[in-house]
């Protein structure tokens, strides 16, 4: 400790240094920082969003979140399957969850709807629901885990996304498949390619024994059991294979972009 004290910027008065540091802070922060003291006071300051900004803690947190994207991509094992469950384990009723109420959920005419396919694919032909229903389908009973912490087990049936990507001649060396949805205020979400190619990542057309109901994303949702719920887009209108990170509805607001399970 003694040596540390001596080494702390030789020739600089510590009090002056502290005063200069405080001057660099925005007004409100500075006042509260000084009156609150450096330890407990500073911690309580961090609870407010505006103060978080002035500490530039937000920028630091964003950088760590990007680092966490990298760590999770590194941890992602394409051969690790999400645990599956017996039908008896299915949560009933399976919760409806969105940033709007069920009455505000998109009402899509299945006969008029077409899935748009864009970006780095050979065949950009739009797909009708009847055409998609002709593709081979598989069922999965997996746990949906919400970013909020709750979870529920559901039964989803549809076409593995990787089969569809192969069918349309997608460049699977691209970085993302970016989904755009019909939710109000425009929902969209990027899915990293390794996850898009995971065997359990599914274009879902059925929930349980029924056609996917409006509450769960009719006509099509993307079921990704290796991701948190918000990375499972519903009411999908289009998909784009791209190398660009185009952001997402929740990702842009601060949820970790990879959000892998």
């Amino acid at each position, binding site marked *: 400790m003694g040596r540390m004290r001596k080494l702390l910027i030789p020739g600089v008065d510590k009090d002056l240094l502290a005063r200069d540091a405080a001057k660099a802070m925005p007004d409100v922060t500075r006042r509260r920082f000084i009156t609150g003291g450096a330890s407990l006071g500073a911690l309580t300051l961090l609870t407010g969003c505006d103060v978080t900004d002035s500490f530039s803690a937000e920028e630091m947190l964003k950088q760590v979140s990007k680092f966490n994207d990298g760590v999770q991509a590194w941890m992602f094992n394409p051969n690790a399957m999400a645990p599956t469950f017996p039908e008896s384990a299915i949560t009933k009723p399976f919760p409806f969850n969105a940033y709007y109420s069920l009455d505000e959920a998109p009402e899509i005419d299945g006969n008029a709807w077409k899935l748009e396919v864009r970006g780095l694919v050979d065949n950009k032909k739009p797909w009708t629901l009847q055409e998609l229903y002709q593709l081979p389908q598989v069922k999965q009973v997996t746990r949906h885990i919400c970013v909020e912490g709750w979870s529920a087990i559901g039964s989803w049936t549809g076409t593995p996304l990787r089969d569809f990507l192969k069918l349309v001649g997608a460049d699977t060396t691209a970085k993302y498949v970016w989904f755009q949805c019909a939710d109000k205020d425009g929902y969209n979400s990027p899915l990293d390619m390794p996850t898009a190619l995971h065997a359990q990542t599914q274009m879902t057309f059925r929930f349980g024994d029924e056609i996917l109901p409006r509450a769960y994303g009719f006509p099509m949702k993307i079921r990704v059991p290796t991701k948190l719920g918000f990375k499972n887009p519903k009411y999908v209108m289009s998909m784009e294979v791209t190398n660009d990170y185009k952001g997402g509805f929740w990702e842009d607001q601060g949820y*970790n972009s990879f959000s892998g399970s």
Partner: protein
Amino acid sequence: MSALSATDEHATPTRAKAIQPAWVRAVHWTNAVAMVVMIMSGWQIYNASPLFGFTFSRSITLGGWLGGALLWHFAAMWLLMVNGLIYLTVGLATGRFRRKLLPITPEGVISDARAALTGKLSHDDLTRYNHVQKLLYAGVIVIGILVVLSGLALWKPVQLQWLTALFGGYEAARYVHFFCMAGIVAFMVVHVALALLVPKSLRAMIIGR
């Protein structure tokens, strides 16, 4: 440990050997900051989907909303884990854990607890922990390991599904994670209260003596 405390002694040759060596103080206060950030952001995350019939007041949570709290939680976890690993590694390698925390006997805990409650427990030698301290410190280390492991089980229930299964599945791991937090908070309340009652122990954790 010995290298660090030797440096310490070199800088202040007239003083006695540190009660708390520099490395212990460094990891202790780093852990204190990381724990407080983890707990306060964790409370905000809990509020998004409470396990019980209560939520934590916004005045004691960190992050402002779920997304902000998650950013704090998944940033401070690195500090908590790296610092915790350093603590466990050095503690085991130097024999500090064995020397300071063992043995813990039921008789020792009972007699020291009785002495503490009747005000007869001596704090003359701060380098030696009594049996109640040993039990609490060893216990909170175990809970600290469990809170990190259950947290990893919640974060990666697919990639680390063996770990999640060890905790009895995703939903069970949420309860384990919560109760570990509750245990740590209970420890902190007692720990801080006692540190304030015996201020020289707090001083030893700050300046070493």
